[in-house]
């Protein structure tokens, strides 16, 4: 068992690309679910729209990088409006089903053979990130870091931008939720009818929340696309949304910093299980007939499922949350 390697991997996972992406996705969900009580099960769709908006603009149509970012953001706003118009007047579980369906529609469409010319089918799109990396201020170097722990200059640039966006998003959420506007959102979560009776336009507030949360989540889509420099449709499956929920609930819904802490812990835990299991198999502690190295990923997903169940049953407020502040009952 190579413990150095295991620990280094866990440390890298704690600040790595996945942690950033899921932190951003969960910050968006926090606005939806944590503060407004909206059950958006289509967060993966927002990530997909952003990532594909960027990739298609640059790789398919050969337009500029910044236009791609702009179109990705516009796409996220339009998606939120499209989802919100039919469902925000209905009960919470309807929104859940519509958003999950919409996210799947997006995934199936971009992976279809029919639109392969535009979206690249199941291979997705590559070669759209050069506009981003040409802005890279880090000089070329194999390893920024200490010893085995570290990243190359490309990863450094993506992670710097990513964590800056996380910080910015958290600040925005913090300021918004301290404002009168944020108090109305929380009131909607607690009792929609009471808010309506005070003369507030609940529908408009929910719509604004859906748009803002969607746009914050879509930043995760950009970072993922840029970090990998390629995207495939199946990355944006329903499991991605559910992982983002696990991250949010782990940290504690309706807390500004919770999604960030949740994402870090989540990915450290996954990295640890992966590496420890893989090392244990290599070292012969676990028989290959019980667990093959290729099956480690499956065990990991089983653990995610268990984690989500146990958290929701025994500690729905997560690490930092307040139980009274979680929207647990459908209205």
């Amino acid at each position, binding site marked *: 068992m*190579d413990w150095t*390697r295991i620990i280094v*991997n866990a440390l*890298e996972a704690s600040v*790595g*690309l*996945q942690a950033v992406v899921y932190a951003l996705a969960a910050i968006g969900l926090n606005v939806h679910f944590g503060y407004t009580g909206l059950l958006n099960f289509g967060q993966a769709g927002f990530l997909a729209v952003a990532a594909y908006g960027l990739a298609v603009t640059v790789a398919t149509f050969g337009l500029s990088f910044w236009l791609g970012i702009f179109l990705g953001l516009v796409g996220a706003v339009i998606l939120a409006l499209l989802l919100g*118009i*039919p469902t925000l007047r*209905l*009960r*919470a*579980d*309807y929104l859940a*089903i*519509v958003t*999950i*369906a919409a996210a*799947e*529609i997006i995934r*199936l*469409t971009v*992976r*279809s*053979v*029919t639109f*392969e010319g535009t979206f690249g*089918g*199941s*291979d997705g799109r590559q070669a759209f990130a050069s506009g981003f990396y040409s802005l890279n201020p880090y000089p070329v170097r194999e390893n920024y870091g200490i010893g085995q722990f570290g990243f190359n200059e490309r990863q450094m640039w993506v992670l710097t931008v990513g964590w800056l966006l996380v910080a910015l998003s958290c600040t925005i959420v913090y300021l918004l939720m301290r404002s009168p506007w944020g108090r109305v959102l929380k009131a909607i979560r607690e009792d929609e009818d009471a808010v309506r009776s005070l003369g507030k336009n609940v529908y408009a507030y929910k719509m604004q929340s859906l748009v803002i949360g969607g746009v914050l989540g879509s930043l995760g889509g950009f970072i993922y696309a840029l970090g990998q420099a390629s995207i*495939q449709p*199946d*990355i944006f*499956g329903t*499991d*991605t949304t*559910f992982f983002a*929920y*696990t991250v949010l609930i782990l940290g504690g819904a309706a807390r500004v910093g919770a999604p960030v802490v949740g994402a870090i812990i989540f990915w450290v835990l996954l*990295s640890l299980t*992966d*590496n420890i299991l*893989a*090392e244990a198999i*290599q070292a012969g502690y676990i028989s290959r007939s019980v667990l093959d190295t290729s099956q*480690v990923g499956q*065990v*990991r*997903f*089983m653990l995610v*499922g268990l984690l*989500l*169940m146990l958290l*929701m*049953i025994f500690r*729905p407020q997560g690490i930092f949350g307040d139980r009274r502040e979680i929207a*647990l*009952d*459908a*209205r």
Partner: protein
Amino acid sequence: MRTRVALLMATMLSALVVLMGIGIGPAAASGESIFGFLFQDKGGKRVAYAGVDVTAKGPGGFTGKATSDKAGKWSIDVPTSGTYTVAIVEKTLPKGINLTDATKKSLTVPVLDGQDKPVLFPLGKSTRKIEGKWTQAAQLIAEGFRFGLILGLAALGLSLIYGTTGLTNFAHSELVTFGALSTYWLSVGVLPFLPDFGGLSFFPAAALALVACAGFGWANDAILWRPLRQRGTGLIAAMVVSIGLSIFLRYLFLYKFGGSTRAYPAYQGQKGINIGPINLAARDYWSMLVAIVVILGAIVALQRTRIGKATRAVADNPALAAASGIDVDRVIRVVWVAGAVLAGLAGVLLGLAQGVNFQMGFQILLLIFAAVTLGGLGTAYGALLGSIVVGMFISVTTLWIPVELKNVGALGILIVILLVRPQGILGRAQRVG
């Protein structure tokens, strides 16, 4: 020393792969291919056809071509997993030999990572020379009806559980998968965690699998949902718990079953039987019959039996039902067991239609939701009606839209229905809230 370094490198590499890819996306793998045999079965003798061209088109503009050899075998290596369109070049077929089903001239097949995907073109004397739009429509309606019945079995269970407990059960799809997987395991004689045995023929295997499903449904309620109800867990919390359960079970199935799609041993490549313009395999006819009988049985049970009436009473108003002496917990237990059996049967039949894999239920979960919503959440008959409509719609729209987008249409209507008539066809407006 050398080996240790190599080992370290391998670990690092695998860790890196794991870290970089979320694992949902297609993992890096190689060696995919599509292959098949071109032959005709003449009274138990295989007559192979050599020199026939087959082409494949796939992602990234890939095109490949192969010619069948003496044994009738052809094989095309493809660069990645993905969806491929495989077509037979008809003019290279020997004179007098045609595809028995002209619609199967070109097939769209998914190729998984590392998979050698078999593709069969049924050859023989062409039984249907001209295939008009109407013939095609009749065939698609029949297939849609079959799929709708399968959806209906699953949707009925989901709807009953929703109606009596308010739970939107995302793990319902795993009940469907469980039915198919256990039938497969019983029929090949390999059970997880148990010693192997000879394997049963299909019907006893399916019957035993349904018993297992009943037990699974009972366990679901007894171990998880009943304690949660007693704790007073909210509906949204319960829904999230069911998502966790769904993820857990799905990957447990993947761990035990593997990622491949397999057919039940007794039903590999059954010949089609024509009834009018419709051409389906014998198993499709009787599986439709089984589904209809079971659905009718469920309706009669709901309408006539004591427990059925009690179920409807609980779905209508649990508090009032309890007050009038109905044991609500017992009703819910029965609903869970019945719902799991219905879902398991849906899985068994779906496995007959399209093969068994670890996420077959999950792949139709949203369609089940669409069916239930279309019919009206929580109304049992609405769920059935919605399923038939969704099944037919998915199948018939392939006349106009590409096959791989058929589910997009169905999910699209789901959204449109919520816009126009959120309570569904048979639902009541006040349920929408």
